[in-house]
């Protein structure tokens, strides 16, 4: 009996180790905006690429309550999800030679090896994220191994500070710099020297491209020791909304088109650097 128990324990541990080392399967989560979004018919098809969406713990409130304040509670990471992701992946499939999955992969920094199976990571509304030290350490390891993190849809000074508080746990010393228009990331497929602020869906109603005090779009990043961008920061813009609503006739085409071009360039950059 005792031997059997030991054997079971060993097998379980090995299995757990195997699971930890292996990819986790696709899971569809209920989101803030979409509780039950339909799956594409080929969602189970394995492919070379998909974009991973970062699941994180969020601060519930970072702004004082008031008009124009939109805070999404603990499920901030699900903003635009999964419609934005699937529209984006469809666009990538159509516009490039990338063999992409039709559905996203949601990953968390849970100290397992799962995140390393998805070298491109996207974080939305990171102005609300609350990374702990363990999560930050794993993010750092992920990036230094060759991972790429793109973050988007956070606006103004308050959200910037929240974002940087988390990012400084990841990289205390690496500078955050403005990306030069000559950077290869703006020229991998499209030449994006002239970029405009891409607003969220709120623009359709407010006709204002910015939120809070995020008046100017900031294309920023953190480079590694070889001069490669490993963190691409899209501050004061909402590319996620642009992909999400690209099929909504109310949402201006010029913003959606730019959002797709930016995504294609960023994805190709990640797959070539």
């Amino acid at each position: 009996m005792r031997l059997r128990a030991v054997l079971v324990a060993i097998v379980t541990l090995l299995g757990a180790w195997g699971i930890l080392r292996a990819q986790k399967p696709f899971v569809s989560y209920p989101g803030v905006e979409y509780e039950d979004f339909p799956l594409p018919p080929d969602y189970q098809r394995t492919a070379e690429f998909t974009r991973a969406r970062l699941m994180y713990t969020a601060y519930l409130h970072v702004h004082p309550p008031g008009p124009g304040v939109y805070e999404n509670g603990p499920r901030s990471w699900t903003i635009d999800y999964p419609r934005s992701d699937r529209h984006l992946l469809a666009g990538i499939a159509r516009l490039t030679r990338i063999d992409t999955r039709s559905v996203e992969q949601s990953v968390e920094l849970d100290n397992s090896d799962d995140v390393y199976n998805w070298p491109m990571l996207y974080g939305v509304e990171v102005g609300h994220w609350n990374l702990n030290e363990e999560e930050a350490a794993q993010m750092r390891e992920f990036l230094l191994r060759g991972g790429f993190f793109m973050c988007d849809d956070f606006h103004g000074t308050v959200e910037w500070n929240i974002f940087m508080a988390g990012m400084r746990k990841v990289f205390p010393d690496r500078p955050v710099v403005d990306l030069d228009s000559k950077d290869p990331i703006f020229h991998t497929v499209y030449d994006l020297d002239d970029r405009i602020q891409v607003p969220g869906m709120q623009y359709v109603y407010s006709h204002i491209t910015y939120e809070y005090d995020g008046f100017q779009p900031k294309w920023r990043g953190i480079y590694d020791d070889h001069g490669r961008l490993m963190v691409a920061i899209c501050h004061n813009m909402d590319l996620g909304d642009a992909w999400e609503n690209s099929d909504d006739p109310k949402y201006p085409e010029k913003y959606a088109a730019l959002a797709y071009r930016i995504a294609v360039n960023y994805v190709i950059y990640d797959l070539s650097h």
Partner: protein
Amino acid sequence: MFEFLFKYPSTVFHQGTFLLASGWPLWLLVLGVIAVGGALGVLVLRKRSARMGNIKAGMVWLLQTALAAVVLFMLWHPALSVATLKPQQNIVAVVVDDSASMSVADEGGATRRDRANALLNGGLLQSLADKFQVRLYRLSDHLERIEKLDQVTAQGTATHIGESLKQVVADANSLPIGAVVLLSDGADNSGGIDLETISEIRRQRIPVHTVGFGREKMSKDIEITGADIPARTLPDSRLEAVVNFHQQGYSGQKVKLTVRDGGKILAGRDVTLKGDGVQQTESVLFNAGPAGVKTIDVVVDTLQGEENTRNNKVTRLVNVDSRKPRILYLEGEPRWEFKFLRRAVEDDRMIDLFTMLRTTQNKIYRQEQIGSQQGLTNPKELENGYPTKVEDLFGFDGLIFGSVDAPYLTPQQQELVKNFVDRRGGGVLFLGGRDSLADGGWVKTPVNEMLPTVLPEKKNSFVRVGANVEVTAAGRDSLITRLEEDPGKNVERWKKMPYIMNFQDAGQPKPGATVLLDAIPMSGGGGRIPLLVTQPFGRGRVAIFATGGSWRWQMLQPVSDKTHEMFYTQLLRWLVNDTPRHVTGSTPKSLLADESNVKLRADVRDKNYLPASDATVEAHVEGDGVSETITMTPEPLEQGVYGAQWTAPKVGSYLVEVSAKRGEEEIGTDAFTFRREDGVAENFHVEQNRELLQKLSSETGGRYYRPDDANKLGRDINYSEAGITVRETRDLWDMPALFALLILLRSAEWVLRRKWGVI
């Protein structure tokens, strides 16, 4: 004993010709034996007693007939005709080995040279001088006449017995040399005595009598017999020194084997010594370091009590080339393997990786990476797509194809890729992918011929199924897949690698191909799929790495782990390390050990890498105080190959710059080095080479002697066909052996009769 029984020494029988001196014909002897035998038979049958049956009678008859035959034989007067040297009219050449190996002190403390001198001064020289004129010589790398024995110093740097004997034989054309006496340990280091020399000595009928000195086996010694290291490589390459050695007296002990550069230890490991006399092969991996010529010493540490410590080290030259090979990588789709392959080799300063990535249906993203430097050195290069001209494609040293389908290249481009390997001598690597290999339609292309596997005819050979990777027996030792120096640890390290995301069935390996890695699908089934397969093709080499999923070796291991980097760096260096240029200079021996002749060689190809047989090729040799330009001439049986012989006048390193021109147009240049070292050859194989000495003497009609029985030499040397001789007839009828045989036969018959009771 022999001489007692047979009246004369064995040399006489060896040298002489048998004859019957009576003058009666041989057939009469035979007839006589038959007649006597018949008569004896009748007599035995008539007179036998009742107790003697047929068999016993037959035995008696045989003994009596044999006795009669011996008597008749003696009556026919057997003799030997032998040539003997006329005293005082012949010269005996006494050749003493003057090489450094004769300074070895064997048992008893006396050196071989001392023992040879003692033998000669102890009476042998006098006994020879009593009958002949004696000419003294000393030999090492050449033969030299001397007047006195104290001119033998045992400091010669090499032993060339064949060349030296040729000189003696040449003297015999004008002098009556009756015999040669060679006192040596036989430790020849010119590769032995060739058939031509032996034939010439035999033609002159000069017997070479040899006296062997030294032990045939050391009791305590380790000797390196060979070391193979590539002559050329790129900076910071991992090289393997394959070392052969044997030992006596230290079986089972551990010893350190090291590789050194100018005294600095580059790498080393402990090895366990095998049985006495057993040839052992071990390897040591080391880093070639920066560009330049490296004088690499391979050393086996000296163990206590070793009798010869000068044979524990050999030297080899390695030319670490400063050229930067260029690799062109065409990737058919943006994917992780492309990204991580580029990252894996980014710190290799010696590889220029130029990539073309098909990002969209009609766009290509070009990048260039030289070490960590990114950016295009020539922005116009390949802006019109994949090369279509020979000079554009052949400007690279290696090619990589990712997930690229065959129709993307025109048939002419496909043929060009094949010629890139076959004619240019470049390396091509195919990666697995959904548009690669069979799935990419490469089966029905000219490229298929050069692939190391037989591609399957099926589609869907690329699958997105996880697979573990194991190294094969060949991969365990290969420098491409060597992650750990110890082969056993290497196998274990590969077993711990993260699984790959996908693999492709590339088919079965062709004969001559080498499988270095296998993929074991995680979906089960127990099968193994060749994953990394290589083979040479024409002047170049081809590899298939049938996956696009090795990027997990980077992402699923800590950032401090450099396995992925090591693997791809080693694979890409293998791809381009041996890719030749338009001019490739070489020499068969980069280290001249106690010799001065060096053969220079140049392989010259025109801009299309076709053999250039009409070039003007020169070699400029620079050394210490030496500067000379030599014209190289075409080799008759090799198109585009030129050769020249040169003599290095002194010890030291020499740089050779080869340049080739066609008219005024320069084809190319190359440089290589070689080194002359003296006093090296005599350190090795210092045991007595008795086999060589015995063979030399037996092939020429002489005899081999140990020093203890060399006193017979004075007598045996008389018998020779060379020089001024007289023919003598030596009687054999009165040999004690014959009388003893008569007594024996008679006694045997008496004993048998007594035993049977028929006396």
